[in-house]
């Protein structure tokens, strides 16, 4: 009898052990998973290709459009007349989209070189008829610092830095480099006091998801007069869209001065490369002495502009890494405690979109509110851009920020790339973000590292 019981126990144990042999199943995408920065459109790739993945679930036709856009994004434009990639300039900042948005990511904060990705906006003080900046005669609202053969670059953009070293309470030092911008070699004089605003090319992934976040959701997060007294306001930047011919909510650009991906892409072709399209059919130097006077506008085929717009619209967002690491979990809590998350909103949901199911009803983690905030005098460009005043910048999306060093080595942060590390970027925060910066500065070494490790997991 005793042997029988032992026998039954062994058989039971054997069956039980066998039942445990089942391999773990994949975690279903439909369930909540904080790695999914882009919801269902999240790329599980932490390599230098992380920003370049197309949406899942595109039809064969849509995939082919994405690929056409991908190829066009990399095309180098050349001087007209040419049978391919026609119409560079005559003045320009760079020769292709990829020249500034390296690997669909960020650029390099210098000017005048082939790899340069920093451009300089220019305007007179005041507000134009449509609420934007006042163009400078002969220059418009952007300095094109390169030119085709036989023409002159509008100006040389000079960047110098002054350095200051600081210490955290624990004795750890850090250095901030403050840029100084100036123009030389002007091709024609500027009469009057002009304003400059540097802009470093930002990453282009995830823009499709940012474009579909409902306007009411974003506007509801405004607190222009800081009624809740938390020191953080946040303002939606309503901008004039030349193509739509109406005021719209600005979402893109470093001061949220552009409403749609289409306008953003077409404006970049026009202002940065000197390529005309159906959205902007005139050269930026139309009416100026360096205009090419060729009757070849629009230079970009409608289909190519639409394909590049679709390409940018359908780039996935990289997944978070190591979300269960206790230090990162701790860093995430510190991020919240420091009120970083008051502007860098961790989670949003896109509305239902039956026409584009990949972007429909997605829980995403952009870490932005797409609003403009006062970032203090140190970062101020002192130049208005529609409703964004000289101190205000759009909250930068932080999704993918932990991969900048991997994709765009060496990494640069903030609107003009002055910050070389995440620590520097945080310590440049001021204005509405001063309290968060001070919170970070007073953290213990371990807690500071935990916050940084959390950011690097994004």
């Amino acid at each position, binding site marked *: 009898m005793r*042997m029988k019981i*032992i*026998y039954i126990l*062994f*058989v039971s*144990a*054997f069956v039980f*052990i*066998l039942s*445990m*042999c089942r*391999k773990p199943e994949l975690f279903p995408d439909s369930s909540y998973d904080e790695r999914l920065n882009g919801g269902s459109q999240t790329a*599980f*790739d*932490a*390599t*230098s*290709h992380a920003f370049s993945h197309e949406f899942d679930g595109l039809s064969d036709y849509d995939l082919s459009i994405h*690929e056409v856009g991908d*190829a066009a994004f990399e095309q*180098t434009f*050349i*001087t*007209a*007349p*040419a*049978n*391919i*990639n026609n119409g*560079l300039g005559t003045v320009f900042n760079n*020769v292709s989209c990829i*020249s500034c948005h*390296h*690997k669909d990511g960020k650029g390099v904060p210098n000017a005048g070189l*082939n*790899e340069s990705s920093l451009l300089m906006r220019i305007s007179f003080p005041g507000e134009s008829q449509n609420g934007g900046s006042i163009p400078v005669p002969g220059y418009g609202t952007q300095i094109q610092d*390169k030119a*085709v*053969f*036989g023409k002159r670059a509008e100006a040389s953009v000079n960047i110098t830095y002054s350095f200051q070293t600081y210490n955290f309470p624990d004795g750890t030092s850090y250095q901030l480099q403050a840029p100084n911008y100036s123009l030389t070699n002007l091709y024609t004089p500027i009469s009057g006091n002009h304003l400059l605003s540097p802009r470093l090319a930002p990453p282009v992934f995830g823009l499709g998801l940012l474009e579909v976040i409902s306007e009411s959701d974003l506007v509801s997060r405004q607190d222009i007069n800081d009624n809740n007294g938390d020191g953080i306001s946040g303002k939606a930047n309503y901008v004039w869209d030349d193509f739509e011919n109406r005021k719209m909510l600005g979402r893109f650009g470093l001061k949220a001065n552009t409403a749609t991906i289409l306008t953003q892409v077409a404006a970049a072709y026009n202002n940065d490369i000197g390529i005309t399209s159906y959205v902007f059919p005139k050269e930026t130097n139309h009416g100026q002495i360096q205009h090419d006077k060729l009757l070849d506008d629009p230079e970009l085929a409608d289909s190519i502009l639409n394909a590049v717009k679709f390409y940018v619209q359908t780039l996935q967002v990289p997944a978070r*890494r190591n979300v269960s690491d206790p230090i990162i979990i701790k860093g995430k809590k510190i991020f919240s405690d420091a009120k970083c998350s008051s502007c860098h909103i961790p989670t949003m949901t896109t509305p239902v979109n039956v026409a584009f199911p990949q972007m429909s009803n997605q829980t995403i983690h952009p870490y932005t509110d797409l609003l403009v905030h006062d970032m203090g005098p140190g970062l101020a460009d002192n130049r208005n851009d529609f409703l964004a005043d000289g101190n205000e910048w759009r909250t930068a999306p932080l999704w993918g920020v932990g991969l900048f*060093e*991997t994709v*765009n*080595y*060496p990494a640069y942060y903030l609107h003009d790339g002055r910050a070389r590390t995440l620590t520097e970027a945080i310590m440049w925060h001021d204005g509405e973000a001063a309290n968060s910066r001070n919170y970070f500065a007073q953290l213990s070494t371990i807690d500071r590292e935990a916050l940084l490790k959390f950011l690097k997991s994004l």
Partner: protein
Amino acid sequence: MKYYCLIIMCLSIISIFSCKDENNNNNGNNTVLETQILTDFAHILANPNYQDIQAKANTLRIAIQNLNNLSNEENLNLARIAWRETRSSWEKAEGYLFGPVDDYNYDPAMDDWPVNKVDLDSLLASNNPLTLSDIDALPTSLKGFHPIEYVLFGLGGSKIATQLTTREKLYMVSLSQSLYNTTSDLRNSWDVNQSGNFTNQLINAGNGSSRFATRKEAFILIATSMAEICDEVANGKMEEPLAALDSTLQESQFSHNSTADFKNNIIGIQNAYHSKFFDDGHGLNELIVSKNISLDNKIQSQITTALNSFNAINSNYGLAIHTQVVQIHNAQNAINALKVSLEDDLINFIQTNVHD
């Protein structure tokens, strides 16, 4: 009864040990092999390949200086051979376009396309200086391989030595020096004797590398780069002139070197898979063959098929787009099949089997 108990106990013990996920059989040997593969990728493939590009760019530089000193057909031909040799080595390195070549824009500095012919002709027709510093300041579409090719071979490859003007030769002298300098920067960026070199980043993946948190990331990057060049060759470089039936849309149109470029890109993929250049190292193939021999057979077979498919394209590519469309489609299909295996099967294999 004791036998039953004994058998059941044995079965239990066997079953407990067999519970381990069959895909998760990472062990010390795998770590050693994975590290060895990355080490050989750097030391047996990348470093020799980049050294070779630099050496051949130096030969090209000297050949163009000789051509400048004495413009005869022999020197023109030697310069053209040197251009093709440098091009061949560079195109092989395009099988793994990551690291400094990408980070520091060495790729567009050497190999931007198309040539800005309007500006190039204007520059040559002008009196502007053509020293090295002048050339370095030019846009990428006016320097690197293809402007040299344009001047050296001429439209349709028709240039003869006596047609070379003084300014064309001066331009090429500075262009070839600039190209050599870029290849030197690229080579130095992997040189273990240089601080911050990329070799140490790669071989220390998952072990202190600031660029690769894990070996898995490094392997996925290698595989992704291999797949990307497949896409660029089949669906970009080959497809664009074919779809438009326009030979001026091919990249190496002046030298009629396009088909060689395509094939060298695929050889670059083969080299990346095996970690080989002059010598054979431990390659990705060894990692795969130990666990999924059919996948290794499939990839190796597809690489061979893709390479062999170019043998059927026996006229220059500008002509072949009109006369050998079937052969071109066969090559494109072979490369696209390889691409699918690399971006799906190989990357999935790495995701599943490399654990660190």
